[in-house]
């Protein structure tokens, strides 16, 4: 018994070492050839998507149930707040209608070329890595549905992120809060240019601001369209004040990763800065 145990342990030891070496080898290959690694990753995601999708439905349903029950409890107070808000929004609605018609007339006068019509593809968020390293989600639409790398992903609140990887049946969306996310934005009424840089926290930083600026808490942040990756004017978030003493400005995104259920991918036919061989993958 004892002898066979030690033999088994000896065998274990070499297997463990073998697998450790194998993992190191895989890491090195992935480092040397990122596209191979990316393609493999999405191929695996494609296979896993139906399973994760099936498992995520009950989770989403129960989360919704809890949310709904909470709403039910707070219905009375919320109703009052909403009535006030509705009143205010109605005024805004009227103002917006006026501005819209005025805008249309002025554009007509200026012979303004409108931006390209966007095509939309809507997908369900089935996987949320919740990772400590990456802020990304998996959606159940992919190259087969016409998803291309680099297109903007939005939800009802505003910009969510961009498509980072495309598989056949799935795609990975890099959220704007991710460490690798850099988005050219315009801030406030003066439309000052800046870059919104994610750092894996819930609030992204504003960097590359002009030296003398008039940006303050509460200013709206929208995409600028610079770099050609995103269309201009997508709402991104609101500037929030940071701890006093630091000149750092942070943005509270409209994106709420925990409540992300559906995303719309907007394809404007913009290829932007993400030109690589993978762009030819789906369609153009």
């Amino acid at each position, binding site marked *: 018994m004892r002898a066979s145990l030690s033999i088994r342990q000896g065998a274990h030891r070499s297997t463990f070492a073998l697998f450790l070496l*194998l993992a190191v080898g895989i890491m090195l290959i992935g480092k040397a050839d990122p596209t191979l690694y990316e393609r493999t990753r999405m191929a695996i995601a494609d296979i896993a998507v139906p399973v994760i999708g099936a498992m995520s439905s009950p989770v989403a349903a129960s989360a919704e149930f809890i949310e709904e029950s909470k709403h039910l409890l707070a219905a009375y107070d919320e109703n009052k707040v909403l009535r006030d808000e509705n009143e205010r929004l109605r005024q805004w609605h009227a103002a917006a209608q006026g501005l819209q018609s005025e805008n249309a007339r002025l554009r007509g006068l200026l012979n303004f070329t409108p931006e390209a019509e966007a095509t939309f593809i809507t997908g369900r968020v089935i996987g949320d890595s919740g*990772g400590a390293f990456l802020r990304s989600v998996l959606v159940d639409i992919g190259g087969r549905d016409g998803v291309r790398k680099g297109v903007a992903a939005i939800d009802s609140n505003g910009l969510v992120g961009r498509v980072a990887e495309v598989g056949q049946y799935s795609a990975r969306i890099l959220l704007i809060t991710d460490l690798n996310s850099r988005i050219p934005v315009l801030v406030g009424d003066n439309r000052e240019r800046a870059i919104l840089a994610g750092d894996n926290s819930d609030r992204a930083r504003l960097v590359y601001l002009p030296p003398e600026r008039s940006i303050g808490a509460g200013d709206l942040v929208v995409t600028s369209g610079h770099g050609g990756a995103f269309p201009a004017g997508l709402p991104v978030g609101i500037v929030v004040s940071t701890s006093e003493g630091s000149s750092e400005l942070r943005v509270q995104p409209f994106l709420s990763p925990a409540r992300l259920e559906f995303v719309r991918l907007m394809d404007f036919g913009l290829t932007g800065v993400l030109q690589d061989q993978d762009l030819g993958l789906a369609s153009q």
Partner: protein
Amino acid sequence: MSGSSWNSFDAIARNSTPSLLLLFLVVLGQLPFSLPGDTAVTPYFVLMAVFYWGLHRPDLLPAIIVFLVGLLQDALEGEPFGANAFVLIAVYWFVASQQRHIGGRSFLVLWLVFAAVGLVAESLRWLLVSTLTTTLIAPWSITFEYLMTVALYPILTIAFVLAQRTLPRSGGDFMD
């Protein structure tokens, strides 16, 4: 005749419970849970499973499964390929080799050991991912993930213990 084949099928199914659990936990870690607040950080479920089964029944969890599950996690989370596989195999190796020293201790001791192993594992993972992506990744979300993982370990352990009760004993009739 058919009874014996059913028995062997039953044994296979039972013996692969730890492996299936591991797979299930990887997928579970991918589900979009809404936690209080907007922080969408999920605990490192697989680490708990590898620690538990490495300690109690390494004979039922082949190293290759741990390795493949690590790769699957890398693929689904979008981390550099091999990082999780490396960390999980290293943890599995350590725990399985220390089985004699830490096996049979009280749960509190095991929890402390898990906290220590988890700290090393998460640090290693942070180091690997930071190196492979050549970006210094801010450590707070991984710290949060680590704390959540340690905090949830007792709950997962209850599930694992219940699962282990259904399994044939090591070296019993079903082995070999």
